């Protein structure tokens, strides 16, 4: 079979535009996920049981069900209940953010738990509250440690965001599908799409490596 290089060249700008949207949706989702996850992760360690339980239920539910099903629930099921149609972009970002938040929560929890117990005791013994100690002493140290797993979460979300193509949201994967429907160039287009994903994930993992090294040096200060 022939590899139609012209088709790749012609489709490339359209696919790249899709890739930009993929990056956007990933960045917004992981950004929101970071915010949700920070609170959910801290909540998981709370001594107040309703807070702790609520956070645990959220994390377990999201991590225990497929992202694809979560997207369907948000895009199809919830509008049925509320009677309002949802914009595919909003639905995609909402689903991915809520999903990412659960994974980030676990990252935060592990990061916080990795900080020596004596740090919390030292903060508390000076008269600071649990929240003050968390904010000024535990969190700043935990943040540095969770950069690598957060980078991995970003890469995972970048790839998983391809699932929002099922609700017709035109990110990279959906763009590929649409071009194939028009040109039947399945082979060329899927390889090109895969190549673009690979390029993005490699770039991010290099960036994470760099940040990790920089903070390691910083830690020594």
């Amino acid at each position, binding site marked *: 079979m022939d590899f139609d290089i012209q088709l790749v060249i012609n489709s490339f700008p359209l696919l790249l535009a899709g890739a930009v949207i993929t990056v956007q949706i990933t960045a917004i989702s992981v950004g929101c996920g970071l915010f949700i996850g920070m609170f959910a992760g801290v909540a998981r360690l709370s001594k107040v049981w309703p807070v702790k339980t609520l956070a645990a239920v959220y994390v377990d539910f999201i991590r225990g069900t497929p992202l694809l099903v979560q997207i369907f629930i948000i895009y199809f099921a919830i509008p049925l209940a509320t009677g309002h149609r949802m914009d595919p972009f909003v639905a995609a970002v909402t689903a991915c953010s809520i999903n990412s938040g659960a994974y980030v929560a676990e990252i935060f929890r592990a990061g916080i738990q990795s900080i*020596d117990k004596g*740090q919390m005791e030292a903060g508390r*013994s000076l*008269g600071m509250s649990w929240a003050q100690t968390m904010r*000024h*002493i535990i969190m700043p*140290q935990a943040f540095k440690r969770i950069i690598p797993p957060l980078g991995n979460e970003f890469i995972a979300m970048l790839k998983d965001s391809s699932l929002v193509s099922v609700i017709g949201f035109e990110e990279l994967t959906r763009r590929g599908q649409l071009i194939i429907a028009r040109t039947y160039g399945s082979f060329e287009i899927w390889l090109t799409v895969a190549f673009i994903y690979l390029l993005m994930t490699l770039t991010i993992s290099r960036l994470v490596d760099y940040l990790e090294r920089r903070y390691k040096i910083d*830690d020594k200060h």
Partner: protein
Amino acid sequence: MISIKNVHKRFGKLHVLKGIDAQVSEQEVVVIIGPSGSGKSTLLRCINYLEEPTEGEIVVDGIPLTGEANINKVRAEVGMVFQRFNLFPHMSVLDNITLAPRIIRKMPKAEAETVALDLLTKVGLADKARAYPEQLSGGQQQRVAIARALAMRPKVMLFDEPTSALDPEMIKEVLDVMKALAEEGMTMVVVTHEMGFAREVGDRVIFMDEGRIVEEGTPEAIFANAQEERTRTFLSKIL
């Protein structure tokens, strides 16, 4: 200053403190000695509620400890120095010392830094204000930890084996700082294995074993003339 009444502490089935009664007066230096596992560190940690007593009552500076309700207020008056220093590694020495006064006492930054530099001078580390904990030796870190606790202007200082994690040649510099503090009239409760310090600086020595206070008295009485066989056995092994 500190009153401890019938305090018990259980960790699950483990009965660590079995009814402790003790008093610490203002300006008194009380040294707690005893074998590992005798409950001396647990008792010290109960005084500022890092461990919650299972039973009994502790009153610090007239305030009964009742848990989260007033614990932060009490802790602000009670300085604690840990075996493993527990300095905040992501902050400079100066920030380590000024953090709590700024947050809790709402002290302005400039004032907090003046106080911190005074304290650093006192512990002999004025030139290390901008250093990070990792750049300091163990003895220096522990002296910073003492300065950090003093920055809150506590009424009582608790020391939990402050020299046990130190190389031998650094022990003296920390003990000297503690001695100077005692001479200034600070109320202190010290858990330690440094018998020289107990003898020289302590006003009273408490010997604990298996969760109980076996014997207490002046350093002379304990070290030269212990009444209990258990105390004599312990001292004969370490002196």
